[in-house]
């Protein structure tokens, strides 16, 4: 029996209304919303198609994951400025940005490239393996020797594009691929950010810490202040998996500077994982080495001033802790300056991460001194090989990395410029890299597996802040296996890279020999060609044919001399080869004697004068470590007796002087003492055979 309407409950009335009218009304609303969305989408597609169908308009798209405040603004301003320049010369160009979140960038990157829909300029770094770079990207090498036209009217006018970057693009060079696949446009430095009003409240007018002792004193002051003012949640430093290592890595690295030099038999004055691993296998160091112990203790001294369990926290958690005034300080880079300033409800200032000096009674023993900054550039786009507008994309990149473009970008983004002589905005002065100093030493992690072991056991350092032994004893048995796995991965990558390079280089080698009249390689040098290449002689012949037809970009033969675009170091340096090398017949004995005769002239670095040891070291790495075959080839081509010119190498030796910077002098001393560089990879392989797991 139906009850009278007045007797109905609210829910029954609601049901009744819905059955009578509600459903129709809701359906109409839903359908209208869908219709509106459809119309908007259609309109946007039509509008876009109109633009895209304009044949005179060139659209350059660039993708990146730099979502920090200011970066997109900076790129936008540079893009608009470039569009104006193009318009002035009658060219219609539009530059668009595609910002993609960092977490999904690698997947996005791969799918866009495979799907053929990647933008013209793609930020390199996440998901960009060597294989993908070689397959999908156009190297910048052929463009770098020419001057950047947007530097006209400055002292960089006429200077090759490569040499306008503060590090001469040494950090961008892919030794394994013999090319430049990205051009970095900033320099990264890290600082300790602090809450200015809180600092003043705690310490009054005391200056910010300049060394490790003063930094510890500041941390203790914060703890005392928190006790006195009943603020148990206030911490000296906001830590997270992202921010914590920025301080701790530096501290640990300050203690392993000398150890890293000892480990490094290849004379690269930088941190080379293979060298550290091989030194570990040789027994040259362990987790009980005094340098490592000192580094662990130094880290423990700071860990206690971060929140417990900070290693479980993400970057955002650390930032939140800082901006919510739960901590006085946080470590991050110049790239976070704008974000932190905008998000913090208080003024923020910075100071350099304080490290122990060599005179420090406890931690000075193993440190060489202040860690040099800004020796490399960072963050860069790659050039999509499938881009229909490669030349315009390169031209835009030229403007972005011109002095003017670089200054505009720095001003709006708050990121440091990477171009020589570009003005650093006043607000970025505290982030100016200090290039005086020494390279940072190694950390314990040398690859994915040892990093995992490090991460998994890190909690032990925090759990027993006055005793490193639990950490050390737990990690030791795992580290050996982890290093072995890391070395295997490195070996695999190296072997493939060598194998890949050997083919074109083999072709050049054969060509060079044929220039000298040798009919067959096997007749001229029966033991000179590595098996891998020897087996590929048919392929090598095809390579020669392709090169002669100009089909291998960047590689040309010039009077018997090898020129590989993008790797001018190979032709700028002169090597004298011990003739016994040839007498020994190649690779059975890899003790190749080389003497560096000439320092490559480098322009000033913009920020401060002086060449970087890393660069010089980098050049050595390029030439010496990657492929014995390449070394042999270079030797054959540049020996002077085999370069097709018949002229001997003529550049005189140059002794280092006191006017050279300390890094170069030190490097030269090391070189003079050894006067022989081993072929590193084959040495590793030889030594690895003796390593028992």
């Amino acid at each position, binding site marked *: 029996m139906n009850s009278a309407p007045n007797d109905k409950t609210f*829910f029954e009335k609601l049901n009744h209304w819905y059955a009578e009218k509600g459903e129709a009304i809701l359906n109409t609303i839903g359908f209208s919303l869908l219709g509106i969305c459809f119309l908007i989408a259609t309109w946007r597609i039509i509008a876009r198609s109109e633009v895209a169908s304009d044949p005179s308009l060139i659209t350059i798209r660039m993708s990146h994951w730099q979502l920090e405040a200011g970066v997109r603004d900076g790129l936008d301003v540079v893009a608009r400025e470039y569009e104006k320049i193009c318009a002035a010369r009658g060219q219609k160009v539009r530059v668009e940005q595609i910002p993609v979140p960092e977490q999904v960038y690698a997947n996005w990157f791969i799918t866009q490239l495979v799907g053929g829909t990647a933008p013209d300029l793609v930020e390199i770094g996440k998901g960009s*393996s060597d*294989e*993908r770079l070689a*397959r999908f990207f156009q190297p910048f090498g052929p463009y770098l020797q020419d001057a950047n036209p947007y530097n006209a009217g400055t002292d960089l006018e006429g200077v090759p594009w490569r040499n306008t970057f503060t590090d001469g693009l040494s950090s961008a060079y892919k030794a394994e691929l013999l090319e430049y696949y990205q051009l970095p446009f900033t320099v990264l430095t890290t600082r300790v950010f602090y809450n200015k009003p809180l600092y003043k409240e705690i310490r009054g007018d005391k200056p910010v810490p300049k060394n490790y002792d003063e930094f510890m004193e500041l941390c203790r002051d914060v703890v005392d202040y928190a006790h006195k003012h009943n603020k148990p*949640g206030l*911490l000296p430093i906001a830590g997270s*998996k992202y921010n914590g290592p920025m301080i701790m890595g530096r501290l640990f690295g300050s203690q392993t500077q000398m150890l890293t030099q000892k480990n490094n038999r290849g004379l690269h004055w930088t941190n080379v994982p293979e060298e550290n691993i091989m030194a570990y296998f040789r027994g040259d160091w362990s987790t009980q080495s005094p340098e490592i112990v000192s580094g662990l203790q130094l880290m423990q001294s700071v860990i206690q001033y971060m*929140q*417990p*369990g*900070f*290693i*479980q*926290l993400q970057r955002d*958690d650390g930032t*939140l*802790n800082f901006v919510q005034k*739960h901590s006085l300080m946080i470590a991050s880079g110049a790239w976070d300056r704008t974000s932190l300033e905008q998000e913090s409800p208080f003024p923020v200032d910075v100071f350099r991460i304080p490290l122990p000096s060599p005179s420090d009674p406890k931690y000075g023993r193993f440190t060489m001194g202040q860690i040099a900054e800004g020796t490399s550039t960072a963050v860069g786009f790659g050039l999509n090989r499938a881009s229909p507008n490669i030349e315009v994309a390169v031209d835009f990149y030229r403007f972005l990395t011109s002095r003017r473009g670089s200054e505009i970008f720095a001003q709006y983004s708050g990121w440091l410029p990477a171009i020589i002589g570009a003005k650093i905005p006043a607000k970025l002065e505290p982030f100016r890299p200090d290039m005086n100093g020494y390279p940072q030493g190694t950390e314990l992690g040398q690859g*994915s*597996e040892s*990093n*995992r072991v490090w*991460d*998994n*056991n*890190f*909690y032990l350092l*925090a*759990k027993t802040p006055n005793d490193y032994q639990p950490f050390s004893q737990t990690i030791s048995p795992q580290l050996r296996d982890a290093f072995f*796995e890391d070395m295997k*991965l490195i070996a*695999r990558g190296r072997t*493939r890279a060598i194998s890949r390079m050997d083919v074109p280089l083999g072709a050049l080698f054969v060509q060079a020999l044929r220039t000298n009249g040798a009919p067959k390689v096997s007749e001229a040098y029966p033991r000179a060609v590595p098996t891998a290449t020897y087996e590929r002689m048919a392929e090598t012949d095809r390579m020669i044919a392709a090169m002669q037809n100009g089909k291998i970009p960047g590689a040309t033969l010039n009077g018997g001399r090898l020129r590989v675009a993008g790797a001018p170091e190979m032709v700028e340096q002169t090597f004298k080869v011990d003739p016994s090398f040839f007498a020994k017949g190649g690779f059975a004995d890899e003790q190749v004697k080389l003497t560096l005769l000439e320092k490559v002239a480098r322009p000033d670095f913009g920020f401060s004068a002086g060449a970087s040891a890393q660069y010089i070291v980098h050049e050595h790495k390029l030439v010496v470590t990657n492929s014995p075959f390449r070394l042999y080839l270079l030797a054959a081509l540049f020996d002077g007796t085999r370069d097709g010119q018949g002229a001997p190498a003529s550049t005189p030796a140059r002794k280092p002087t006191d006017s050279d910077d300390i890094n170069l002098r030190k490097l030269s001393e090391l070189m003079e003492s050894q006067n022989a560089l081993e072929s590193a990879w084959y040495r590793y392989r030889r030594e690895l055979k003796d390593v028992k797991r």
Partner: protein
Amino acid sequence: MAQPISNRKALHEWQLYLFVLPSLLLVLVFAYYPALSAIYHSFFDWTGGDFKQFIRFENFTRALGDKTFWASFITLAILVVANVVKMIPSIFMAVLIHRLTSDRWQYWYRVLLVVPMIVPGLVTLFIWKFFYDPSLGLLNATLDATGIKTLLVALDTNVLQWNVFREGVPIAWLSEPLLIIPSLILWGFPWIGAVGVLIYLAGLQSIGTEVYEAADLDGASSWQKFVYIEFPLIMTQVRLSLILMIIGSLKDFGLQLLLLGDGGGAGGRGMVPGLWMYNRAFTAGEFGYACALGLILFVFILALTWVNNTYVRVEK
């Protein structure tokens, strides 16, 4: 029993089979092709690109000696057992809702259960991650406010000797190896899954009222009704949930990845086979080896599903 039709009859309207083709094609491309590709690549040293080297069974022999991989099964076993226990609250919730006499209230409880389903899973994960934050998290704040922290400290000091609950030190739930598995088990408390409850409810609603009337005549208590009537009659649903849970536990690693990272967290205690497979593929770049691990996992899933189907019988 349905009679089989003749081939002639089956092929009489053969054009109708063309309607199946698009779906079949999609299933082949997106479900079977990746699986077959994984089988193929498990025999290669492959880093995910064009280059690969045939290495026969090397990936599988390596997996047999992979300590991390096999240790991860211990963590997995603990989590599977915990997940079985975590199914119980959903069953009880379904029974409670089923026993409500008011249809309207039943409806609203079902709505309340379904509403959280519209929250994206990732948001739920992040909220739980925030619960576990040592300094700002809700869990530690609750333990401090209720005094339970003091009890835990006393328990740790006098009985457990774990040295993980300390006075004046916030509990680091996700960076203490001993607390990682308890944290993973605690995740989702009170463990009432909307999908599970709805599945069980569907089973319960198929029980006729005459069964309850008969039980009432026999003087059965509420608990006896549950044990002798409701639970046996929803065993089909329970078995389905069990299979899905086991397959899910073996395959899933999103929770561990988000909370602990791809290394499995402190001491690697949160490492499960799926996460190790992900780690090898995307951190170490060993895609071929990861495929082999995936195949081993597949065998485990198949075996467990067979055991479940064979031994967890439903008495009709």
